[in-house]
């Protein structure tokens, strides 16, 4: 699957100090739970309900994002497929997989596609905040590699 060209609009460099996290999950409960935890920790939060909307939001808002939190099993476009479509385009944008999946081969596939961390649901809020803090500790927010 490819993302329609009309969805690919923002390509400029990201700015330092971005504090916005994109949460991609088909469960409203998980999006609200994660959003509430992260807002409490001082982050802005954007939401997307599947991989297609997630990819669209990343392309639209990459400059504002410091992290993507992504589920795997979702309708329309799953999280691994989304990562593989976007592979290499946002090398400074860390991606945390938050999923019920625990297979080593899926973890390896996510790593190859650029994911930096993996948490198996259910999770404790303090662990999520700790993981987000670690992953966003880099001094720069994402920049996009121009299309070939």
């Amino acid at each position, binding site marked *: 699957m490819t993302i329609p060209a009309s969805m690919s609009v923002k390509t400029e460099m990201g700015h330092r100090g971005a504090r916005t996290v994109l949460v991609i999950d088909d469960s409203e409960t998980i999006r609200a739970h994660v959003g509430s935890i992260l807002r409490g920790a001082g982050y802005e939060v954007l939401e997307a309900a599947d991989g297609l909307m997630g990819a669209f939001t990343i392309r639209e808002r990459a400059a504002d994002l410091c992290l993507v939190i992504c589920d795997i099993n979702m309708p329309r476009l799953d999280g691994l497929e989304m990562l593989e479509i976007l592979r290499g385009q946002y090398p400074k944008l860390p991606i945390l997989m938050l999923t*019920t999946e625990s297979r080593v081969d899926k973890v390896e596939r996510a*790593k190859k596609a650029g994911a930096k961390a993996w948490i198996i649901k259910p999770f404790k809020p303090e662990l999520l905040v700790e993981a987000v803090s670690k992953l966003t500790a880099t001094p720069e927010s994402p920049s996009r590699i121009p299309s070939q």
Partner: protein
Amino acid sequence: MEDDQWSNWRFLLSSTAIELFEHYGVSLHDEPHWTPVLGEGEHVAGSVYFGGDRIQGALTVCATRELLGRATPVPPELPIPLSDFAREIANQILGGLKTRLIRHGIDFSYEFADPAAQLPQSQLGGDARTLVLRSVGGEVALMFVVTSNVDLAPVDDSVSPEVPQGPGGLILL
């Protein structure tokens, strides 16, 4: 499939569900005998379908609105339907079940439409059962509909296709 095989399925499902509910602060004890599934009060349900080469079916979690409202991690001011939380619990129970089944060499994928419409039963060639588990207090019932041609053989400890971290563990890649 022999009846004792279905008791293995029952054990996997009930133990996974009990562990999962503990995470949300709810202590469950499953009911080993036939009892009426419907308890008192208003109930909410959520279902997840799954399918694979050797297993397919659905898991429905039905629980009282009171219990789900108590356990949900969503802030009370947000108008998110409790059916979404019930579905997420079904999703997470299936995730735990999937992890345990991987040790038996069995895997499945989540389906976003009824898999029976995509994979005719004759193609799977398995035995079908409905396992209904109900907590002793009657607040939670799980309905697990499964078609399977799998005998759950003893786990091969030399095979560990899942990551060693359990739920909630952070894996840096």
